């Protein structure tokens, strides 16, 4: 058991942090919802009711979709784009999908490779792209969920102001949907870009996200 926790401590700790932050968001969001309801003369709701509401759902989903977009873009673009000196980048001569030998697929796959890395055809193609396929699916799914919960939240506000509710397709053309989407996208792209360039010059001893402390600034695609 101890070995299990040690070997999986990264995912376990982040899972715990995620759950704690989600609970905290629910509590703070519930308080904020009821504050706004009070000031509009609307009835307040319980925490149990709030966590299954579209208000909470939209807040969660708009953040999730941007995180999965960030990973989708980062995984995909780092195949072809380079950042000299960054540990987030491949080495300068490695741009593109690389050779089968470098990627250890087909006849070049060692005995303990995943099964679909050894085979030919559609299964290997799917496996070769499985990470971006899954991330893209999560991104599009959570973005859809953001839009479906967002339209309910938007329409509740419309009714509060005695205005017509809108359909889902109309909501996709509103400034509200795009503001909520883009305010999250910009922060994700900023975070990735910052990390790519800061890691050229700065170090964190012991982290695989950093180059070794003594590695030159020009060293690209090396981990600490």
């Amino acid at each position, binding site marked *: 058991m101890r070995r299990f926790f040690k070997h999986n401590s990264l995912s376990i700790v982040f899972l715990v942090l995620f759950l704690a932050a989600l609970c905290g968001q629910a509590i703070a969001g519930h308080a904020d919802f009821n504050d706004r*309801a009070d000031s509009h*003369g*609307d*009835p307040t*709701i319980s925490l149990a009711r709030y966590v*299954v*509401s*579209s*208000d*909470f*759902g939209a807040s969660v*989903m708009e953040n999730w979709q941007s995180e999965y977009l960030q990973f989708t873009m980062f995984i995909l673009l780092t195949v072809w784009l380079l950042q000299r000196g960054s540990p987030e980048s491949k080495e300068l001569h490695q741009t593109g999908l690389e050779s089968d030998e470098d990627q250890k697929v087909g006849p070049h796959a060692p005995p303990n490779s995943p099964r679909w890395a050894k085979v030919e055809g559609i299964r290997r193609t799917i496996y070769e792209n499985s990470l971006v396929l899954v991330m893209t699916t999560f991104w599009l*799914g959570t973005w*859809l*969920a953001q839009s*479906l*919960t967002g339209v*309910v*939240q938007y*329409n*509740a506000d*419309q*009714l*509060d*102001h*005695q*205005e*017509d*509710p809108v*359909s*889902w397709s109309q909501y996709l053309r509103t400034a509200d949907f795009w503001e909520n989407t883009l305010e999250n996208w910009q922060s994700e792209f900023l975070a990735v870009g910052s990390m790519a360039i800061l890691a050229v010059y700065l170090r964190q001893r012991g982290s695989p996200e950093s180059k070794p402390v003594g590695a030159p600034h020009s060293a690209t695609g090396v981990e600490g």
Partner: protein
Amino acid sequence: MRAKPVLCACLLALGLPGCGTASREHDAAAVAKRFHAALGSGDGQAACAELNPETAAKLEDQEKKPCEEAILSLELPKGGTVADTRVYLTSAFSTLAGGGVDFLDEAPDGWEVSSAGCRPTTPEQPYECELEG
């Protein structure tokens, strides 16, 4: 949304809201129907019982008479059926078959009419309501 049942099935896996509003829409529609039925039968007290307390108080203040008398003097649809009701969080929007719209809010004890006898004005502008909440 025609695709709503399919989308709801997908979203249930994520435990998301948006599904299961059918019973709440039915409850809100029932309140709107009772309100207009009470007006149709001249029962001002029953009609005021379906109102949001703030709306009732505002009506009494404006008309300078008890709610059950004031409500019957307004030009509100009497009787009729509710053609469609939509629920969004704790707000609802009921369209009457004979024309006009009611706005409702969900209180701890159930739905209450907050504005009634509402007609559209210009696009993207608020409705004008005979009974304002």
